[in-house]
């Protein structure tokens, strides 16, 4: 058995990394252990003390690197160590009426992990993602050096953009120890319109809305909205001053023929709290898992799509089944499929059944959760982005000792 190391300082992390480099001993980088990683330890409670016994490989957790390096409200920039939780960072910003406009999956995730997993959600198209707000980074590289890139300013083309290179890098290109972001004012008076639909005809109206170029903040649909039923619940969020909101509401209601109801985001009317409210900035996945009472090793597949594929009238219906729960962010776009089964064989069969449609949609897959036996080999070509072979070569170049254990980079190139 191996152990979890929780350094309290970046210097301690660097010293530990150098020991692993000297011994050529691979290890995995983790935050607070909130995320699923294929064929590794299952997610669970954070590593409270360090020294916990885990399966191979060793783990370096950044969860105790929680300092605020700077927060300049006048410049709307913040810099924190990578182990600060998403909830803590957003709370810090909220004190000044600001927000990091990204959609992490879990409030207890560290900001470093959310960044390294490139978490996103309802706001991706209209408010951006990590690529749109990262301005600086510090990480430990494959030579054990502590390196910096970017800085504290909102515009910067001085040298290569190593900040963005680490987005979605899944711990394979270094140990992220600190991040700097530009932040935004919180949305003004956010509201949402929602409505039930017996089938995916809502897509056609979303397509009309998209075509009409109405500046909404987010769109999310999911099904089944209520246990046992097969209906969709669609939510559309917007914000701004009263005149702006009235106009947007009018435009949307015209398209939906007045079928939608207005709620104030963040309120909990009629059990609709799983519509993305302000929690979209802190962690939007748990309420859905709770709603559907999903078991610990349920399957959660994030399918990355083009907007045109997400709005295609037949794609979603063809995937839908009684066992499947779905969440769609149709503009951007992504489709999350949840399967209420912990059985690896059932999960594999489900993934295989999706493949013809995924190929047709030119979709890619990310595993959000699964049975412990499920891994990248079950996703095949769908886990590999364009240029994957070069990405693998880059990993080998930046990690010549092969100490950053990250199975994403070890798939057979298709």
């Amino acid at each position: 058995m191996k152990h979890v190391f929780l350094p309290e300082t970046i210097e301690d992390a660097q010293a530990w990394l150098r020991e692993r480099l000297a011994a050529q001993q691979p290890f995995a980088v983790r935050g607070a252990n909130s995320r699923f990683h294929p064929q590794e330890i299952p997610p669970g409670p954070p590593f409270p003390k360090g020294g916990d016994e885990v399966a191979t490989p060793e783990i370096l957790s950044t969860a105790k690197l929680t300092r605020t390096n700077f927060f300049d409200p006048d410049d709307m920039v913040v810099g924190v160590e990578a182990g600060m939780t998403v909830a803590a960072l957003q709370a810090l910003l909220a004190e000044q009426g600001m927000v990091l406009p990204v959609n992490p999956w879990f409030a207890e995730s560290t900001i470093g992990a959310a960044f390294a997993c490139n978490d996103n959600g309802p706001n991706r198209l209209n408010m951006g993602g990590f690529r749109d707000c990262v301005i600086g980074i510090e990480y430990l590289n494959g030579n054990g050096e502590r390196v910096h890139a970017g800085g504290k300013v909102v515009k910067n083309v001085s040298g290569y953009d190593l900040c963005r290179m680490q987005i979605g890098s899944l711990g394979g290109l270094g140990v992220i120890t600190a991040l700097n972001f530009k932040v935004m004012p919180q949305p003004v008076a956010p509201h949402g319109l929602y409505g039930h639909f017996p089938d995916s005809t809502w897509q056609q109206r979303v397509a009309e809305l998209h075509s009409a170029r109405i500046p909404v903040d987010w769109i999310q649909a999911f099904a089944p909205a209520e246990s046992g039923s097969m209906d969709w619940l669609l939510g559309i969020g917007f914000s701004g001053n009263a005149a702006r909101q009235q106009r947007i509401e009018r435009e949307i209601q015209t398209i939906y023929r007045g079928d939608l109801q207005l709620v104030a985001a963040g309120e909990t009317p009629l059990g609709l709290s799983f519509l993305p409210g302000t929690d979209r900035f802190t962690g939007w996945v748990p309420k859905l898992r709770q709603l559907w009472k999903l078991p610990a090793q349920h399957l959660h597949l994030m399918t990355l799509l083009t907007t045109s594929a997400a709005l295609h009238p037949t794609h979603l219906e063809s995937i839908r089944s009684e066992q499947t729960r779905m969440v769609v962010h149709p503009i951007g776009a992504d489709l999350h499929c949840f399967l209420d089964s912990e059985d690896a064989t059932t999960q594999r069969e489900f993934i295989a059944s999706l493949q013809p449609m995924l190929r047709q949609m030119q979709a890619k897959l990310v595993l959000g959760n699964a049975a412990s036996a499920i891994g990248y080999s079950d996703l095949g070509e769908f886990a590999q982005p364009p240029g994957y072979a070069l990405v693998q070569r880059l990993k080998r170049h930046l990690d010549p000792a092969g100490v950053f254990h990250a199975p994403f980079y070890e798939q057979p190139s298709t």
Partner: protein
Amino acid sequence: MPFAKPVRQELARICGKEWVKDDAITLYAYRSDGLTLYTAPPLGVVYPGSTGELVQVVKLFHREQISFLPRGAGTGLSGGAVPCEGSVIIEMARFKEIHEVDFVNRTITVGPGVVNLRISEHVKPHGYHFVPDPSSQKACTIGGNVSENSGGPHTLKYGVTVNHVLGLELVLPDGELVEFGGKHHNLPGPDMLGLLIGSEGTFGIITKIVCRLTPNPEKAVTLLGVFDSVRGACDAVSGIIRNGTIPAAMELIDKTVIRAVEATLKPGFPQDAEAVLIVELEDLEDGIGEDAELVERLLRENGAQDVKRAKDDAERTRIWRARKESFGAIGQLSPSYYVQDGVIPRSKLPEVVDQIAAIGQKYNLTVANVFHAGDGNLHPLILFDYEDAEQVENTHKVGEEILKVCIGYGGTLSGEHGIGLEKRKLMGELYSEADLENMQNLRAFFNPDGRLNPAKIFPTPSRCAETKGVSSQIPAGSPLVGKDESDGLDHAKLVAHKSGIAV
């Protein structure tokens, strides 16, 4: 020295004889980009007409160990397209095809030689535009924008080029053709697009770009705040942003530039003002009036003596034309100017603009200001006479001191022009040795032999000519030296007048 005969023959076979040039005038024309302080003649210039031709050309150079670099419209302002070490320029002007427009996915797929403004013009009838709008957008190409991660006035609200590109196809220095991204907004794995965009043509040569399209705003309101000090205008910038309002653009113009643009473009700026602040709001028509009233109030509360509102599109266009062509208008006041591109935290603007003025005074040079105030992206314009060697020397010193002030305030060397040749020696002031080595390790991955656009970004020695102080000299080794120079042109002035920027 022109192409060796076998190389020329092979290039002619690949691209056609008329697309391979190494005559003296061509080499002279390609010796610099928009920053003419740095020059070096290329070995030759090749104009491939397709990705297939480009791949063959790159493989040839790789095999023959010839260094090379891509070039768009040559409007760059950091010497990034100067052909150091006898490199061949691969001119990408023929890659100007608009491949596909997809309004559902809000993308347009284009060749790198497409002019920036052409993209927005192409989709304007459908209600969309491409956001990054550098001042050179009438001439600069999208390939150059991607290489430099260009910005522009409207990036305050919407972001820079990296925020508006979803996919790239590029040829690596050994001729391998690779693709990243696509029409998806997200894909598994590291953000390779983020790494490639802004790599200044040192990782690969871009052949295709998937750009995001953004809906045109239903309404734009342009306000002009009039101030009796630059410092006051800078204070207003922070006041507006701190209030939680993010305008589409906030641009500051000082009195020197006001005088220049009023002499040429006549936008109607008050000539007794010390500075004007252009603030533009974009949104739905409903509600924008309320936001505009708020901004107007904030401008007045922060010291604006007057606030004017563009009453129609014609007036708005006049204001923006004056802003975007202000660099050129400086020609009314000075034979040459040198533009800097440092960035500082926005809240430090008042202190830093005072320091910039003091640096100019120290060297007895006028420093004008026109910059992206909302981003803290400064563009001090150092006015000088290129015939005066001492002024040229002092211009370099002023530029360097300004950038060091930016770094001292927690800022950076460049917000949108890139490092190129110009600022590479200051990279050591910004980054530690380990940071720089880490970046160079990335270059070693993509560009292991260093033959793609050598001598850029990092403070390493190069054989490029730096024409400091002796601007009229043709560099030693220039193909013009020892050849027919009886064209009657004063070459130094030709460069100065053509570029309108600096010698």
